[in-house]
């Protein structure tokens, strides 16, 4: 019995502790899943008219018509557009943040304190008031109705958090590791890539996921910039299913379910980096 326990669980956990762990996890999982069940009942009910769950009628009304209708209404194009934007945001945003975070973490330089606080500043101004100046600036730079016009604000949105997160993570990695690398003849960039980054995989995973997610679910800026019906992204497309009074809730719910898939997939893929068994934080002296 104890051999079974030792194989699968922590050495020091007693059975009551293990059971309570499962209970806590199950309770919260139930909490997160329950509203989704709501969503699923609406998604699988062809012609659903309200956004209120209908558990009783789930099996009678089951049908995938909503999913079919969603794709007929251009959902595929929206998915493609969103994928492009989100991937680019993630790649560029994280790359840009890595270099900045490294500078903040490893160097003492003039402007550092103000610099890092100013990253924080950018998050503080309420979003509703950014609409008008955003319109102005994008108009002047002729970036309306283009993916670049969307990319630039998105990258600006994800960089502050990524920089702070990566810096915080870099701070936990002792400098002694890089110093030994310098002695061995590495230069700055190599030290960054070969030593610091591999040890920061969890932070990288978080910031990649976060950047992707921000671009994937952003509505306001996308609705302002993208005017061409073939260029709009998922959040903007979703809203077109809902009108001021009533809406095609079934199709809306089906699209929402489809929208969640890529994020879940990405998370599944990245979580092994998030919780990887690394010999992290240790220079085993």
């Amino acid at each position, binding site marked *: 019995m104890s051999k079974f326990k030792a194989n699968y669980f922590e050495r020091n956990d007693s059975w009551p502790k293990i059971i309570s762990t499962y209970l806590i996890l199950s309770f919260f999982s139930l909490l997160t899943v329950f509203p989704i069940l709501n969503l699923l009942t609406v998604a699988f009910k062809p012609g659903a008219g309200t956004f209120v769950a209908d558990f009783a009628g789930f099996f009678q009304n089951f049908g995938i018509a909503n999913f079919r209708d969603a794709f007929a209404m251009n959902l595929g194009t929206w998915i493609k557009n969103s994928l492009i934007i989100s991937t680019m945001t993630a790649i560029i945003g994280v790359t840009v943040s890595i270099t900045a975070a490294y500078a903040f973490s490893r160097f003492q330089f003039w402007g550092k304190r103000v610099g890092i606080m100013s990253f924080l500043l950018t998050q503080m101004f309420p979003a509703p008031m950014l609409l008008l100046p955003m319109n102005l600036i994008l108009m002047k730079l002729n970036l309306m109705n283009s993916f670049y016009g969307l990319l630039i604000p998105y990258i600006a949105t994800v960089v502050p958090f990524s920089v702070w997160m990566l810096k915080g993570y870099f701070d936990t990695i002792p400098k002694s590791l890089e110093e030994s690398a310098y002695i061995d003849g590495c230069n700055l960039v190599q030290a960054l890539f070969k030593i610091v980054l591999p040890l920061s995989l969890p932070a990288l995973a978080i910031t990649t996921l976060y950047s992707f997610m921000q671009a994937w*679910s952003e509505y306001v800026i996308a609705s302002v910039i993208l005017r061409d019906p073939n260029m709009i992204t998922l959040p903007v497309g979703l809203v077109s299913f809902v009108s001021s009074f009533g809406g095609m809730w079934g199709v809306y719910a089906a699209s929402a379910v489809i929208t969640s898939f890529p994020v879940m997939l990405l998370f599944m893929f990245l979580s092994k980096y998030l919780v990887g068994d690394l010999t992290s934080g240790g220079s085993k002296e």
Partner: protein
Amino acid sequence: MKKMSLINEICLLASIFIVLNVLFTTTETSIFNAGATGSIIATILSAILSFSLFITMRKKQMGKSNTHNWAAPYYFMLPAVLVLVLVVAFPLIYGFYLSMTNMSLSSFRNPQLIWFNNYVAVFSDPKLISTVLRTLIWTGINVFCHVAIGLLLAIQLNRRLPGKAFFRLLLIIPWAIPQYVAIATWKGMFNESFGVINTLLQHIGVNPIAWLGNPNDTFIASILTNIWLGFPFMMMIALGGLQSISRDIYEAADIDGISAWKKFTHITLPLLKPVMIPAIVLGSVWTFNMVNVILIFAGSQGGDGSQILVTQVYRLAFSFYRYGFAAAYSVIIFILLLVFSLVVVRKSGVLKEGEL
């Protein structure tokens, strides 16, 4: 020496802001109404100013990045700073400018400068205090619950546990679902007659509550929904942060016979600080400015009784078209958050050098 560099830092950044502002204006929307010639003159002046500051600072360069190119950090930062300044500096300045005009429906194309009148109006609004209080309560409860629940779950998931990948996947759902959809779903769940929550309450013998029917219950419903929306994010960050804590420390603590609670408060919490403090600061800022939940629950036309500061901004700007007034509110929000983050960051020492 410390005071000098702070002033210089501020001066330089201010002049950079001015330069960029001028660069992005034309005669129509020029903030200082100086026209094209004025813009060019201002550009040159700011360039000279920042140039001379740079030269002064070179003489007082601090830090001992001896083995490396001293310009390296600036190169590293350049891409990030460029993008941010481009997209954020201008809206911020524009927001400050707007707050000093009377831009509204009747003065839409040609707003006039009225300096601080908007601010006077904001501070003499009797409802300001209740709105600020409500915002503080909203932020405090939400962030506390996010962090507490997130930490709790992260610690559970940090153990060896069969099936934890499955739980991890389920627990990230609130974050993965499009926010709009999640909020609409919860709104449906809070429906007075047909919503699931009231149905469940009735099963356990509690009277159904008119969730969306009055400001207080709407507020409570919004908080509950936002907690659901926000804890996976904190859980994820805590999980990542826990990875950086080596197991050896815990095992050493076990050998010394330290209790689980002490392990938590003396090992886990301090070592999580560099990762959690940024998350908490940013999380607080985001929650403070979170428009969507209250907007969808109370509607942009909802009464004053359920608004927080940022939804008030939204209402003023898009229901009443008082852009100038809304901008003044926004500036106040900005200052509040700025002070808050400065205090938290200073106190937690996250910006101090040389910890490990």
